[in-house]
């Protein structure tokens, strides 16, 4: 039977294993035929969304993993915008609104609000946090 998951990622791309474990759980749930309502990045999880992560060429790139998963399975990757802005994680729109000439979040990640986490929890069968 198909179930719906919402995944919350609170750990950064580099520094703890939370993001890698979250990605692997998400991949496994898709492979088992379940649906992912969205992957919501909160707290230090927003550090997964910067395009300026540059792991060494022989290292596992978890951010690339999230982007591939999103592209292949049409999974929404949603940042908490207020958590992101406080950590220097900025999309083009916020850069323009705040007079910044640079931004580090491109289109793979959506800048959303906590409301999307709440409505996601409401529509999902399970919330899984990492």
């Amino acid at each position, binding site marked *: 039977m198909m179930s719906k998951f919402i995944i*919350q990622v609170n750990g950064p791309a580099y520094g703890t294993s939370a993001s890698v474990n979250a990605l692997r759980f998400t991949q496994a749930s898709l492979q088992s035929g379940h649906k992912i309502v969205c992957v919501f990045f*909160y*707290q230090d999880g927003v550090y997964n969304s910067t395009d300026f992560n540059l792991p060494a060429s022989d290292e596992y790139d978890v951010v690339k993993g999230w982007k591939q998963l999103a592209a292949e399975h049409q999974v929404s990757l949603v940042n908490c915008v*207020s*958590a992101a802005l406080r950590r220097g994680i900025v999309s083009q729109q916020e850069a323009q609104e705040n007079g910044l000439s640079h931004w580090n979040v491109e289109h793979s990640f959506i800048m959303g*609000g*906590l*409301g999307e*986490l*709440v*409505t996601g*929890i*409401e529509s999902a069968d399970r*919330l899984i*946090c990492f």
Partner: protein
Amino acid sequence: MKKICILFRSAPHGTTKGREALDFALLSASFEQEVSLVFVDEGVLHLLKDQQPELIGGKDYLAALKALPLYDIESVFACKQSLGDYGLSHGLLSIPVTILNDEAISAHLKAVDEVLVF
């Protein structure tokens, strides 16, 4: 509508966990979820009155605790053992809370739909 429990287990100020927990709690309530807050372990220090986080570069997010009734958040629980561990008697708390023993907290965690730990 879901029953969402937000569990505070980290101390205030040293990390932003408590603040991000409270942001989520208020937002969930404004989206008409049935929200409950549970303070355990070092998290009970959120409830201590007369804190001045501005002195250490923080924001007085604890003031929002007083606004919980405005958000219809009426289920605010604190762990009896944790309050005792940190020497927090009723008179030291900034807001009214319901004090629960471990079994009652377990029962609450069981009764809600989702628990988010901060």
